[in-house]
């Protein structure tokens, strides 16, 4: 429909949500790539220390306790716990600076 009375989102008024409630497939793809990079960083830190006969608690914890991208559910990759959200989950992109954070662990008993 063309003309002054066309039905666009802006013309219809009301609240226009600029951020979709879920991630797009490309956002999810890039999220996976970022997570895989963090995994490979941890792996390299661990194997570098190991090759030199060294070890440290922090790296060991990251290697063995930190969830790996390949082992995680899609639900945990793309959503995070939120006590205000319906169903106690919201999409990861609503977390400020979400591309510079690791949002992998859920709270205990959730």
């Amino acid at each position: 429909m063309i003309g002054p009375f066309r039905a666009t989102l802006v013309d219809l008024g009301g609240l226009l949500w600029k951020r979709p409630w879920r991630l797009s497939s490309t956002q999810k793809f890039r999220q996976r790539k970022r997570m895989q990079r963090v995994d490979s960083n941890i792996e390299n830190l661990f194997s570098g220390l190991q090759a030199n006969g060294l070890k440290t608690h922090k790296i060991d914890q990251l290697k063995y306790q930190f969830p790996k991208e390949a082992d995680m559910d899609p639900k945990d990759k793309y959503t995070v716990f939120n006590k205000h959200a319906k169903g106690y989950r919201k999409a990861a992109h609503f977390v400020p600076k979400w591309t510079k954070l690791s949002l992998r662990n859920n709270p205990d008993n959730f």
Partner: protein
Amino acid sequence: MSSIIPKFFKVTQLKSTIAVPIKKKQTLQRLGLHKRHQVVYQKITPQQAGMIASVKELVKVELSVEEKSKDQLREERKSDPGFVVVSKRR
């Protein structure tokens, strides 16, 4: 065998420090990283590994046998010109 053992972490900063917490920004600075796509080599020690781990979302970590200087890295980035300068006119 000893030449195969990696001795250095090759750390490349991929994300900018804009709006990251001051502690992480300072950690990157202590590692010698000031801007994106900058590369530094750090000796493999538990201390360096811990520092890199605290900024693991912002960098890319690779293992390296040798430490390369800034000039060497620049030389590697240069494209092949397709000719060799034999001599220059006086």
